[in-house]
């Protein structure tokens, strides 16, 4: 988000809560914008703004911040929240109300963050979510509890069952323009600590004009970890909020206090959390709330986990699930793919009939329709993959996968939390790379990013699907397993296995910064909100069509020109026309380099265009064949490739072996430039994206070379 997007001088509210507290579900409920209900930390990385509307017609902006456990940042998501909060403290377009989303079935840990928010001096309204999970077990005086915690109101509600939002909106509205909250610290320090912390507190109160309560909280956070000081420095370097001497005094004071605390044997790192929890637990027990009432009870999720994370059954189920998903991508998608294929052909026919013969018609039919159609065909497969990923994530299974895989992942230099980004990489590397933010150790995060584009993303799927569908026979192995499906799984496995091996190699060379840990919440299993799942799948599908569509449309048009001009002299056959076109010349220039891989000049053109985006290879081939064909019809790309022969030898140009070599090339090659732009952002240097482009393309060339030459030596064709 940038605060500039929120209209200034108007009341607005910010949503803050723990991961898995149902924050996004509440955001959707209040704004009607249907976005993601996250069950897994790291999904709500983007900051989202929506417009909430109460029954009496009042509307205001609502900002959704990433999930966080504390205002002392550890991961990048948490740093985003901490930096945002610091800007608010210093009067930079602060919200009128903070809505603290709390999971009623996990009260004490969720309220920890609430009490940190209550320190800020901004009115806090607690949305006590998931009341449907606790039913009547939480019968307490919420107004009394609110007063004790220093928040404006606590509103019981359920985002899943859709009740309580009217009360929440009313409470938010009532707190707009409310009086500032009390500024006395809620918990006291012992004399020793109070004395040592004194200078820092005084500095914050006098020089930064903090209230006593806020100064106490911020000084405890400053001594807890250096990350809080970093938040001050980052915010300042971006916006110049604090003067240099002020930052310096803060740093010096912090060091002095930390040193003195350490001398006295005080545990400064756990001081804030210990004091805060001691106070909070006391408040809760006074309100007759037991913080671990169900510790002995084996709940539903624990029972399910007896199977899903079982020593042997757990990993086996995971493998079966993955295989099932990839089989489904191939078998379920065939019917809608045929519809789209026929639909595109029909559209082409209609345009052929409607428009007069000429260059414009050729451009539309051979360039645009053929190019875009070739990509649309793969939409069903991408949607099916997205559907499974979203369901598993919302169900809570992905955290279990991280839990089960941590041991294996650490053995190859990665982290249990690398699993979700790597699996997202099967859909698209970009959200995958962004979700590595939940990995708190830099080294493991970097390695995850470096190998992530080796996971076969959905943009490779069109290429695999074309090659497999055209050249791999649809035979059944052992009566049940489809050979085409097996080939596809092999491509995914090749990329994945290489990613693992390289992760291990990289981990030997990259230096460690800080220690890695695996403190990860395992959220309870929840039935996914189907509305949210379908909207998510739809959004991703739309994004693919729009984004890919734009690039493909542009490239298709450019390519059509390159392939159609210059028009040869006299009356050459179309075959010769494209040979002598610009595209043909470019293709022939690169042909010597790719010849050892079994690729001809047409694939050469395709490889060049696919550097923008992988799936462009398919539309490139479609465009080339359509320009080349002398009948006014959309050529079925598969047939065209199958029957294409080498003009010199008369042998088929593309064989199953060439198809395999091409697929291996696509498994490894660094082609999607958008990915490397994101890596540059996330690693803050060009060093890593350049390294990736070099190593991946070397792998691609060598891999394809080995397949083609090795295959030929073994007598395959």
């Amino acid at each position, binding site marked *: 988000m940038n605060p500039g997007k929120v209209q200034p001088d108007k009341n607005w509210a910010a949503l803050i809560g723990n991961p898995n507290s149902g924050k996004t579900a509440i955001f959707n409920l209040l704004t009607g914008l249907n976005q993601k209900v996250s069950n897994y930390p790291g999904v709500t990385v983007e900051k989202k703004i929506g417009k909430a509307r109460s029954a009496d017609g009042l509307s205001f902006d609502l900002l959704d911040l990433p999930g966080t456990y504390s205002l002392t940042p550890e991961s990048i998501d948490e740093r985003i929240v901490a930096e945002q909060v610091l800007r608010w403290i210093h009067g930079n377009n602060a919200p009128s109300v903070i809505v603290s989303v709390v999971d009623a079935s996990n009260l004490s840990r969720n309220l920890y963050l609430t009490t940190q928010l209550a320190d800020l001096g901004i009115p806090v309204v607690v949305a006590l979510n998931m009341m449907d999970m606790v039913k009547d077990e939480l019968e307490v005086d919420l107004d009394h509890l609110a007063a004790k915690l220093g928040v404006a109101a606590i509103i019981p509600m359920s985002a899943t069952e859709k009740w309580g939002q009217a009360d929440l909106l009313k409470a938010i509205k009532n707190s707009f323009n409310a009086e500032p909250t009390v500024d006395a610290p809620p918990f006291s320090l012992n004399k020793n600590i109070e004395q040592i912390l004194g200078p820092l507190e005084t500095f914050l109160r006098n020089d930064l004009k903090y209230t006593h309560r806020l100064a106490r909280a911020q000084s405890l956070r400053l001594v807890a970890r250096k990350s809080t000081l970093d938040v001050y420095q980052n915010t300042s370097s971006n916006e110049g909020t604090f003067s240099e001497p002020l930052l310096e005094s803060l740093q010096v004071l912090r060091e002095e206090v930390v040193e003195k605390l350490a001398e006295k044997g005080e*545990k400064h790192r756990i001081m804030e959390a210990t004091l805060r929890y001691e106070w909070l637990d006391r408040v809760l027990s006074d309100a007759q709330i037991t913080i671990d009432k169900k510790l002995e009870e084996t709940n539903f*999720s624990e029972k399910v986990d007896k199977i899903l994370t079982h*020593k042997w059954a757990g990993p086996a189920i995971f493998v079966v699930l993955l295989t099932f998903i990839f089989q489904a991508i191939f078998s379920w998608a065939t019917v809608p793919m045929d519809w789209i294929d026929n639909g595109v052909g029909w559209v082409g026919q209609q345009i052929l009939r409607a428009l007069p013969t000429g260059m414009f018609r050729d451009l539309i039919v051979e360039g645009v329709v053929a190019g875009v159609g070739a990509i649309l065909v793969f939409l069903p497969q991408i949607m099916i993959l997205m559907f499974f990923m979203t369901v598993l994530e919302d169900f809570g299974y992905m955290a279990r996968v991280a839990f089960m895989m941590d041991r294996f992942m650490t053995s190859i230099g990665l982290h249990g939390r690398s699993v979700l980004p790597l699996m997202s990489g099967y859909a698209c590397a970009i959200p995958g790379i962004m979700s590595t933010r939940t990995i708190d150790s830099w080294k493991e995060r970097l390695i995850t990013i470096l190998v992530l584009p080796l996971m076969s993303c959905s943009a490779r799927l069109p290429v695999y699907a074309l090659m497999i569908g055209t050249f791999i026979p649809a035979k059944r192995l052992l009566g049940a397993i489809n050979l085409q499906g097996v080939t596809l799984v092999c491509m995914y496995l090749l990329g994945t296995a290489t990613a693992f091996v390289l992760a291990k190699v990289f981990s030997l060379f990259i230096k460690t910064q800080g220690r890695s840990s*695996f*403190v990860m919440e*395992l959220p309870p299993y929840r039935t996914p909100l189907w509305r949210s799942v379908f909207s998510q799948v739809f959004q991703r599908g739309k994004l693919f069509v729009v984004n890919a569509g734009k690039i493909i449309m542009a490239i298709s048009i450019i390519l059509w020109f390159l392939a159609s001009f210059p028009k040869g002299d006299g009356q050459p056959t179309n075959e010769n026309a494209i040979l002598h076109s610009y595209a043909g010349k470019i293709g022939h220039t690169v042909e010597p380099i790719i010849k050892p891989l079994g690729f001809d000049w047409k694939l050469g053109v395709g490889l060049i265009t696919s550097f923008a985006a992988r799936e462009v290879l398919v539309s490139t081939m479609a465009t080339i064949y359509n320009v080349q064909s002398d009948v006014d019809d959309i050529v079925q790309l598969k047939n065209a490739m199958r029957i294409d022969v080498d003009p010199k030898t008369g042998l088929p140009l593309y064989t199953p072996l060439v198809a395999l070599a091409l697929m291996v090339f696509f498994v490894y090659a660094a082609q999607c430039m958008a990915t490397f732009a994101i890596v540059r952002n996330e690693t803050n240097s060009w060093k890593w994206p350049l390294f990736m482009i070099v190593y991946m393309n070397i792998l691609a060339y060598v891999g394809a070379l080995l397949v083609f030459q090795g295959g030929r030596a073994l007598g395959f064709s």
Partner: protein
Amino acid sequence: MTLYELPDGEIGVVKSFSGEMELQSRLVEMGILPGIRIRRIRTAPMNGPIELKVRDYHVSLRQEDAKNIIIVQ
């Protein structure tokens, strides 16, 4: 004893921490502090991390880190 030695399914009360302090800040922020009761639910496949139940939620932790949490049963 340490949390590492606690068998799956058993309950212990956190007494103190030992070893490196880095991890402790996060644990304490997640509500795992001296005096709190912990149930060790299970150990992940391949002798991986352990799953704990504490304060009405479930959390995972690596075994080597569990060695630094002193508990009484």
